[in-house]
């Protein structure tokens, strides 16, 4: 075991993992985290704690991760390269590990121009690939990025993101292979709506041996309205929402219900793809949808049968 995290145990045992997302609040209210954690508790193996998601300032992912641990749940702490240099990142990685965080998701991060502080300075000392390598060396050597020894290594299960829908498509699996080479243990993908393209991406991953070397969790998200479907299709970079999905949302009498139906169908389809080890359900500010989705998809947390 590299980290001893529940997520690692589930994936190593070959059980289908279920993760969800918990966005920290735009305030100092711990209760928000506690309430969201309670909704998700028992339905998932671990929850991603976002790090200033979409470049909007929020409670820190490390603090929120600690609050989630106190609720008896396992966090996957997200860390972006946008807001910190390697000094601050290593400090937070050690601090997080000391607080009991066992999973770390390494991201470059959305550009600061998207968020509520577009006048801020972007850091990008590292990128997601070099961040992964740094965390792996901190855990396995164990050493800081500068080469100096670390006395007590942070035992972390290292993750990253992959987007099968960004361009150039033939390079997406190759880029993921770079993250594998850098040291990831698991990956969560961009939200899947186009399942055909996802299957093609997975075939490329199998061909490159990626599925042998890291666990792939397919990202899914319930659509709440036709407006949201269109927004994601047209306005969110790196998203691929097929017209058929938009049409289903438009034609639905109960859009939220239809969104959950579509999500459940997608889970069934991605689950059938060889090399998919789990799903990551991103129901942002709609955590109540997660128990509904897992129940309808017949998903139990992989940890339930460890």
């Amino acid at each position: 075991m590299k980290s001893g995290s529940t997520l690692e145990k589930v994936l190593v045992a070959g059980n289908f993992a279920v993760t969800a997302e918990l966005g920290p609040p735009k305030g100092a209210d711990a209760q928000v985290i506690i309430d969201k954690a309670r909704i998700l508790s028992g339905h998932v193996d671990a929850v991603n704690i976002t790090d200033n998601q979409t470049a909007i300032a929020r409670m820190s992912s490390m603090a929120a991760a600690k609050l989630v641990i106190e609720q008896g749940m396992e966090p996957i702490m997200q860390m972006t390269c946008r807001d910190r240099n390697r000094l601050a990142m290593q400090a937070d990685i050690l601090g997080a590990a000391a607080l009991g965080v066992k999973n770390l998701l390494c991201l470059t991060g959305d550009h600061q121009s998207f968020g509520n502080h577009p006048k801020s300075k972007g850091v990008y000392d590292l990128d997601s690939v070099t961040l992964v390598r740094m965390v792996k060396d901190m855990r396995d050597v164990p050493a800081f990025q500068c080469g100096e020894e670390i006395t007590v290594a942070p035992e972390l299960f290292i993750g990253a993101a992959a987007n099968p829908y960004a361009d150039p498509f033939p390079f997406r699996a190759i880029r993921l292979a770079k993250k594998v080479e850098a040291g990831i243990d698991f990956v969560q993908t961009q939200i899947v709506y186009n399942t055909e393209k996802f299957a093609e991406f997975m075939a490329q991953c199998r061909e490159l041996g990626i599925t042998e070397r890291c666990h792939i969790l397919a990202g899914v998200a319930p659509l709440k309205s036709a407006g949201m479907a269109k927004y994601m299709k047209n306005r969110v970079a790196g998203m691929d929402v097929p017209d058929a999905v938009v049409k289903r949302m438009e034609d639905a009498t109960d859009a939220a219900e239809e969104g959950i139906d579509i999500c459940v169908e997608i889970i069934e389809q991605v689950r059938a793809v060889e090399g998919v080890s789990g799903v990551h359900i991103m129901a942002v500010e709609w955590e109540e949808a997660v128990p509904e989705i897992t129940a309808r998809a017949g998903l139990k947390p992989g940890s339930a049968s460890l």
Partner: protein
Amino acid sequence: MIVAKPKPFRKIKQFTDPYQNILVVGCNTCVAVCLTGGEKEAEQLAAKIRLHRRREGLGGTVDTVTVLRQCEHEYIEEIKDEVEGRDLILSTACSIGPQALAERYQDVRVVPGMNTKMLGMVKEHHTWSEYCVACGDCVLHKTGGLCPIARCAKELLNGPCGGSQGGRCEISPEVECIWQSIHDRLKRLGMENDLKKILGPRNWSWSKHGGPRTFHKEGFKP
């Protein structure tokens, strides 16, 4: 070349209104080429200031002088007679100009007439794009001759990120995804295996992050 853009005229008014004896100093190198701060533009700016002062009844004198390069002491030395007795110098050079003038003419106030934008080249007619950030450690040999530090919004060494779509950057459809271009070019050159190599982490100490930089050409006395 260095590309600079004039500050808004409301700023220029703010800077110059309180003074009576103003010298606008143009620069005939980079900013002349990008048509913003050379002799002609410095004279146009001085005329605009004069007109504004006449309208507002502010009086005073506004003259112009242009040097070949404001970033070299020997050229700014040449204008010492014009500077004599002035209470304000307004420079239309890149930000090196006002600094050089402030160093040479310690008793005269110096203000910038421009915002220095980038090290760039002409991409289309009268349109300049950023090509270099003077990071101090050129990586072009690894990236098909296209700079990800200057031209990727996130300065990625292992792009393109998940926001690249149709050759455009996630921050705006107006912005080229340089990593898509790097990918295409390396492929065309049969060098796509280079894209599999993990680049970085960078040594930023060779950039401004290592503190202000100096460069001394070996073999010459400082």
